[in-house]
């Protein structure tokens, strides 16, 4: 006898893709919607519960057009919280796969690669959590050049590749190298005590964001980044070099990164930077990484105050 499922409806199609099996277990409790931060921070129409419902009800076109299909970054916070143990990101991925096959494309603007600068080294391919970049060969002045190209349907715009590219060949709108450095250092006449690179996802609650923004400009300058994976050690060094006393990098707790593993990349970068500063006999306390968990409301204030008080203390010599 045969145990295979007969595919008759869109819901069947979703269920037949690995990860989509448990689609119909959803009883619409809304846990996923409030555990996820996309609706609160970016897209009011983002709603995983409703996408699952669209799939269950065979509303295929609506599902393909839904921002939820395209904006889920598979952080899986919802999966851990789901009382029905539905692997929601995988269900969404299954819908997305069918949408791409049906010719729909992502509404997100992907990162862009400058072909003139790209050397085809492949570091972006290694760091990307989504397998969006790949290398291809292109004829250029009679030679075959290896270049990186980015799959627009896979790129989630975390900027980890931007921070990793040794040649600065990749750009993401809003957080290109110049856009970041122009916010501090050489450009602003009065340097603040502290520059904070803040991952937009690490501060769940609006109260914490406004709290951070309430520091005076001469004390704390905030640079918003999409993920701590985007940080570039050079930016930190430039900040220190331009007379800023400290650099704080604020990201998500391990396991809670909005872009799967950008926070892990950041942690590696910061510990390398620490080691480098130590070798140069500079004070590595002036660069800090804090990783904030979803329940750690108010922690950011404690961290910033603590750092400010360290920085305000009689300075040790910074060469």
């Amino acid at each position: 006898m045969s145990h295979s499922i007969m595919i008759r409806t869109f819901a069947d199609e979703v269920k037949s893709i690995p990860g989509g099996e448990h689609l119909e277990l959803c009883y619409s409790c809304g846990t996923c919607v409030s555990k996820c931060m996309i609706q609160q921070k970016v897209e009011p129409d983002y709603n995983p519960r409703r996408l699952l419902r669209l799939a269950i009800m065979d509303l295929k076109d609506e599902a393909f057009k839904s921002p939820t299909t395209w904006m889920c970054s598979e952080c899986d916070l919802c999966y851990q919280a789901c009382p029905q143990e539905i692997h929601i990101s995988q269900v969404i991925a299954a819908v997305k796969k069918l949408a791409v096959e049906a010719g729909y494309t992502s509404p997100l603007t992907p990162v862009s690669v400058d072909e003139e600068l790209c050397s085809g080294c492949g570091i972006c391919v290694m760091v990307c959590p989504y397998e969006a970049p790949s290398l291809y060969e292109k004829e250029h002045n009679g030679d075959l050049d290896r270049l990186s190209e980015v799959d627009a349907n896979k790129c989630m715009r975390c900027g980890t590749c931007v921070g990793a590219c040794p040649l600065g060949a990749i750009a993401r709108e809003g957080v290109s190298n110049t856009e970041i450095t122009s916010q501090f250092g050489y450009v602003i006449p009065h340097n603040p005590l502290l520059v904070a690179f803040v991952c937009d996802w690490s501060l769940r609650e609006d109260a914490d964001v406004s709290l951070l923004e309430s520091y005076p400009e001469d004390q704390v300058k905030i640079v918003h980044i999409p993920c701590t994976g985007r940080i570039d050690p050079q930016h930190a060094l430039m900040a220190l070099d331009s007379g800023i006393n400290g650099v704080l990098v604020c990201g998500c707790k391990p396991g809670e990164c909005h872009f799967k593993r950008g926070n892990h990349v950041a942690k590696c970068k910061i510990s390398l930077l620490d080691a480098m500063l130590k070798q140069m006999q500079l004070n590595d306390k002036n660069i800090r990484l804090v990783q904030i968990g979803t329940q750690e409301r108010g922690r950011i204030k404690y961290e910033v105050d603590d750092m400010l008080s360290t920085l305000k203390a009689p300075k040790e010599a910074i060469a």
Partner: protein
Amino acid sequence: MVDAARQPRIDVRAFTEVEKVEGFVGNFKVTLREKAKHVLADRCNGCGDCAKVCPIEVPNHYELNLAPRKAAYVPMSQSVPLIYSIDLDACIHCYKCVEACGSLEAIDFSQEDKIVEEDIGAIVVATGFSHFDPSVMEEYGYGRFPNVITSMEMERLNNSAGPTMGNLIRPSDRRNPQRIAFINCVGSRDKRYIPSCSNFCCMYSIKNAVLLKQMNPSVDITIYYMDIRTPSKGYEEFYDRAREMGIHFIQGRPSLITEDEATHNLFVHSEDITLGRVIENEYDMVMLNQAAIPQPDQNHMSSVLNVAQSPGGWFMEYHPKLRPIDSPTDGIFFAGACQGPKDIPSSVAQGSAAASRASRILLSERWEIEPIVAVVWPERCTATTKGRACGLCVKACPYGAVVIEGDKAAEIITAKCHGCGGCVAECPEDAISQLHYTDAQLLSQIRALLADKPEEKILALRCHWCSYGGADLAGTSHFEYTANERGIKVMCSARMDSDFIYEAYRLGAGAVLFSGCHPQDCHYITGQIIGAKRAVRLKKIFERMEMTEGRFRVEWISAAEGDKYARVLNEMQDVLDKMSPEQLQEEIARLKPEMEKRLKRFPGVPGVPEAMLYSDNLVDAILKSKEIA
């Protein structure tokens, strides 16, 4: 409560546990352990002078540890019976209590646990339920955030007999909370913890909300829920009333609670499903409405009483629809939440129902039990043939119902025999038979089931109490499995004689399933163990014969595991499907002489030759009749 104490025919034995239950309907022997209170029940007048002078304070478990009690204590002032106990784990032996008790001389430090045996006709099990511990759900912060409390803590904080005399305060600063959130389904309807619905919590949280609102109408109360279930009379109306009183209901399961460290106020994050919008609200206090779970000692009680458990651990009734009060054991009945979460009206109703079921027996002079018992052919017993009984039957009996006196043949004490059939299958001389499950009957059944294309068939031997029930549940749940299964029922896996299995393979059966209950669920105490030993032995024999793996399968399937029954059968079908017909036929033919060798003594069993003769005829008739039909 008080009525029970006042009723002269009720003998209340508090602080007492059931250690052992033996016997059968109408004739149970129950061993009770009366735990030492170190206070003489007949002398204590409940004055409480001992507690007044006791210098030791420990958390009172009855008050959810929200209040202290003394080492000399009663759990609450209205305790029934009102007899104090000395908690020796806490006591420092200052003996002030002895002094305070004075001439009553009720305190006795030398008292020890007392073991009491009682003759009982019928038993009502009403062991109740316990509460899920929400501290394992990190997202709600119970145990870390002081103002997140459980529903039972709320009961005590809001109770005029409780530690705060009914003045609801929040633990962090003892202020009266103004904004309170209740979260339903904490741990329940959650596949990570308790997949089932806890039945009463919807009404329970509405009740608490209404009480708080009645006490103080300015309190702002929000109930977070997934579904509100109001399935009984008057419940929906009560829910209406709660909404009219201004209690807020938000459909949406909170995913997270965060706390402001300075104020200890709480922020509940959820989706408002009706709006489709994520909301974050601030509260002074959050109550988690915990799931109901089986008692921590439910597994232990299940083996003491020898009754099975449903998925989730609750006691399992004989039939979910038609015999919801009866346990599978005659004379043992369930009442209340031990059988599944229940509210107070249903528990009271079940208590009455159980009393009525039990009194059918208790008010009868005599009771009839099924005659499915073992009987001995004394002339076949080794005591007769060789002068000495081998005693295997005695070893196989879980009830001590088989006795061998001197050089006489084994004898069955019918009143003690529960009819598992273990001695029947174990007897090497085939000197014991089981009424209604004789070798002749079972052999004819097997031959009939394997009359037509035996190589396609899967013969499934199932015990009456568990695996047969599991097969029923597979059907009731419409879990589809292969129609090549041919089931046969015996009372216990202990009865599944090796000869039946050899015979099945001799006839050319495709596969054989040997299936009984899980060891702890056996209806006959240790019957399954006897069956399991035999199954393992058979498995080894077939391995040595190089039988294809999976053609003989041993599985323990409870009456609650319909899905497992279907899965096992489908997997066995897959094993057969993977073999080519030639390969299977070749194997059947190769093993046939082996089986015949092992069956040499089988025709010696009384009734078997007749059954063989009869079934040869029957098989012909079956094949012919199928052609015509």
